């Protein structure tokens, strides 16, 4: 059938002339420019404070002391000298062993919290999270008080477990990583679908078989994730090996000794790069696993709540949980007692003397309160700038139209920090910023650089939190805003921020707490006269003042608890004001 001629003529005259094939682009208004500028700023920030320093470290590892390029010579030297390459093997060994122990303990504990009806689960959960509040070297100190040659448990039992070395490091790393693994596992266990269990029960499946065929497979990705986290924490931790490692060298302490002891920056850079390799490897594996895990969780599940178990199982679980929780409390107790004791274990007279910090150095700089205040300031700056940086970056990356290549590159740069160990980051900052040729040299030796280093060190987790929160917002909010003639920053301010405020607060909290206890990210960057508390703990321990180190740790814990309490109140207040819409 052909169209009548006349029709074709009419429609032709109405035709808008066809333009040559050329992609249409929207005009870029002021807003578009602003968005682009902000995205570019995010990119510049990440290049300056993440990529560039790492690049400098990498370059340095390929040079000799005079600065000439020597290729892989430093790496060959490291691996061909048994006395040095032992730190690589040691690191892998303690990381693997502590990962296995951590995951097993955390799984039992998480199972108890989410699936069993044992009493006091709320208290057990609170106790399990306590290790997050203290710098990682403090538990090592406590272990010395407990299991060291003069430790009270050593004396009590008459058994010396040989704490100094790998035993002590592994114990500390397990203690350190336990709450992190616990959070991942209990989240996953809480998400299991009860209908699977009901189906199994209707098929007369034994509870043992249900455990092996439903429970474990259901959390397999979480188990991997928990293992990766535990491995990375143990691999990159500096505090505990420093205190309790003795002659047992690991990569992190090796870097420290090379740089601070021997001023051998090239070898420090080399070992940093070596440390980076397994860390990045684990990071990549974790990203792959995470992606699968997301696919596993569907939105409409009926969660499997706590269920009573057989008496024997219940008892075994209770015993192991109480043992773990009891152990954590004893460690905390030891820190408290140690902080208030004149000279452990010879003179157990209670005293406040340890809080005067009357050794040379600390006192001269204004005493404990000044140091603590430095810490609070640093942590406050980290929380403030870190939260802004993280949330704005996540917003621009998630809620912009177009520019998809730029956005995916920025996304990648935002998750990479998780793979970079704190020691490596700290050292790379020396290379990048302790260089008068760099215009940002003015930052060197300032609190601000400590903050930036800490922000970059802890960037990834809050970034992913922010992304999750933003993804939960209707993607059409921005479209609606635009259709109603509202610039994007107004919708951002009036809708996005209020709705995401609980997430924003928890991001700030995360930054603050970590900034209070971090050591590895700042140990190379501290400024004499402006020590922060976590560093002071290390310096006091170096000076043989364990009791004062514990006293200082206790102050850190107190600040952490206070912040946590304030956070709780703030969240409740905020929820009442801005989340009123949640109430039906």
């Amino acid at each position, binding site marked *: 059938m052909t169209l009548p001629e006349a029709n074709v003529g009419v429609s032709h005259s109405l035709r*808008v002339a066809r333009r040559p094939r050329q*992609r249409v682009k929207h005009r870029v208004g002021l807003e578009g420019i602003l968005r682009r500028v902000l995205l570019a700023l995010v990119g510049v920030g990440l290049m300056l404070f993440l990529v560039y320093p790492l690049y400098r470290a990498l370059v340095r590892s390929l040079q000799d002391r005079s600065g000439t390029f020597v290729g892989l010579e430093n790496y060959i030297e490291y691996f061909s000298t048994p006395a040095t390459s032992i730190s690589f093997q040691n690191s892998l060994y303690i990381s693997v062993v502590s990962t296995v122990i951590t995951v097993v303990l955390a799984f039992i504990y998480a199972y108890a919290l989410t699936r069993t009806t044992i009493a006091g689960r709320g208290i057990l959960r609170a106790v399990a999270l306590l290790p997050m509040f203290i710098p990682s070297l403090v538990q090592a100190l406590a272990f010395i008080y407990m299991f060291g040659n003069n430790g009270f448990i050593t004396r009590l039992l008459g058994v010396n477990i040989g704490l100094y070395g790998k035993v002590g490091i592994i114990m500390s790393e397990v203690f350190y990583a336990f709450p992190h693994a616990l959070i991942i596992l209990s989240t996953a266990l809480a998400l299991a679908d009860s209908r699977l269990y009901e189906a199994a029960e209707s098929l007369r499946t034994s509870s043992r078989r249900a455990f092996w065929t439903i429970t474990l497979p259901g959390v397999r990705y979480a188990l991997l994730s928990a293992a990766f986290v535990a491995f990375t924490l143990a691999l990159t931790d500096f505090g505990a090996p420093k205190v309790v490692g003795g002659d047992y060298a690991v990569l992190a302490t090796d870097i420290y000794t090379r740089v601070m002891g021997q001023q051998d920056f090239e070898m420090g850079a080399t070992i940093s790069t070596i440390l980076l390799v397994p860390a990045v490897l684990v990071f990549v594996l974790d990203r792959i696993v995470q992606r699968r895990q997301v696919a596993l969780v569907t939105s409409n599940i009926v969660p499997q709540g706590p269920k009573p178990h057989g008496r024997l199982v219940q008892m075994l679980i209770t015993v192991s949980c109480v043992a773990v929780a009891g152990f954590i409390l004893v460690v905390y107790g030891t820190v408290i007692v140690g902080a208030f004791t004149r000279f452990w274990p010879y003179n157990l007279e209670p005293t406040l003397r340890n809080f005067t910090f009357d050794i040379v150095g600390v006192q001269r700089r204004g005493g404990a309160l000044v140091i603590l205040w430095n810490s609070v300031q640093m942590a406050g700056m980290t929380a403030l700038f870190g939260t802004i940086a993280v949330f704005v970056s996540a917003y621009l990356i998630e809620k912009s139209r177009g520019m998809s290549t730029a956005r995916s590159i920025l996304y990648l740069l935002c998750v990479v920090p998780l793979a970079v160990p704190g020691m490596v980051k700290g050292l790379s900052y020396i290379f990048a910023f302790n260089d008068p040729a760099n215009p940002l040299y003015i930052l060197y030796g300032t609190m601000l650089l400590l903050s930036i280093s800490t922000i970059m060190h802890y960037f990834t987790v809050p970034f992913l939190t922010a992304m999750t929160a933003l993804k939960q917002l209707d993607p059409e909010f921005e*479209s*609606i*805003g635009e*259709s*109603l003639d509202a610039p994007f920053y107004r919708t951002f301010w009036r809708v996005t921020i209020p*709705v995401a405020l609980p997430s924003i607060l928890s991001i700030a909290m995360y930054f603050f707490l970590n900034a209070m206890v971090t050591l590895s990210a700042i140990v190379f960057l501290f400024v004499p006269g402006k020590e922060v508390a976590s560093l002071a703990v290390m310096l006091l321990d170096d000076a043989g003042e364990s009791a004062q180190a514990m006293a200082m740790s206790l102050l850190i814990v107190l600040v952490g608890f206070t912040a946590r309490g304030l956070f709780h109140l703030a969240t409740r207040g905020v929820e009442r004001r801005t989340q009123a*819409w949640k109430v*039906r």
Partner: protein
Amino acid sequence: MNSEQKSPENPYLRIAHITKTFKDLTAVNDVSLDVRKGELVTLLGPSGCGKTTLLRIVAGLEVQDEGEIHQNGVDISRLPPRQRDFGIVFQSYALFPNLTAFRNIAYGLENRKLHRDKIHARVRELMGLIGLPDVGGKYPAQLSGGQQQRIALARALATSPGLLLLDEPLSALDARVRVSLRIEIKDLQRQVGVTTLFVTHDQEEALVMADRIVVMNKGRIEQVGTPEEIYRQPANPFVADFIGVMNFLPARAADDPRRVSCASMDLECAEPHGYPPRSPLTLAVRPEDLRVGPEVQGQGNRASAHLQHVEFLGSFYRLTLGIPGLEKAHLVAEVPITAVRDTDVREGMEMEIQFPPEFLRLYPHQPELSA
């Protein structure tokens, strides 16, 4: 297909040769459409046909690869959304959860820096218009789906935009609410007189609401017309199949330009069909157009059919019929109970049916439709 609508006056919205490709998928393929002022046009099609993409291009939320859009005589092809003049409602409501219903409606007015009293008056007016004068202080989570969608509609209309874009606004709602709200939206649209593009995959919604329906498939426009035109004279088998129910039978053009043969039947058409003799065709007829019962007696185009299955649906019967020589094809007929009140309707019986010439439609042979 005749995708360009001829309209005597200047169209309010002109979509010209819009093409949009995502990676290797052509979502919208050289689509042109004119919409008159005050008209409600639905974009109807299966999911993935490009209707939502086209709507988002009109809004500026997606950028077309090629083509132009003119609104009220102005070329808006390259304008970002904020510089265009439209209100939009999404399937997900997209109400700001932290703002009350009142503040949601006022959101766009506040951006215009209007005086407080004016904003107040306008919001009150709109809330009256949507029939929800008392929910201003409530948050979206405290409202039902239908109420939320009406608030979203009020928000989109608050600034009196020249163009209203509705992206499957009823799809998330309960069936009952959907039916009542589609009438309300239609009334409101007429009252306000706003030119409206309405995306839906629900043919009933499109038939009920639209002044004109644009049927889309695979990024192209299949047919544009009033609901009656689309239903009575589907331009091609896709439209015929997508809108309502249609029987497709394999047929062949006869030597007589007014006749076709289908199995053992020799059927007459109302007008010459224009296909060359003996060319393979697809014959289409709607279930409700087939006739059975006493009234068939003495008419042409009759055939004998085997009654395979009877469904009783209250006001009508749905009959599944087998025709000798067409073993693979079934014919579905819907007959009002009044038509067969005095006739016996039993499964397994033979009955006479009639194909009224005026309701037969012929298309070039479509192997996938006529078995």
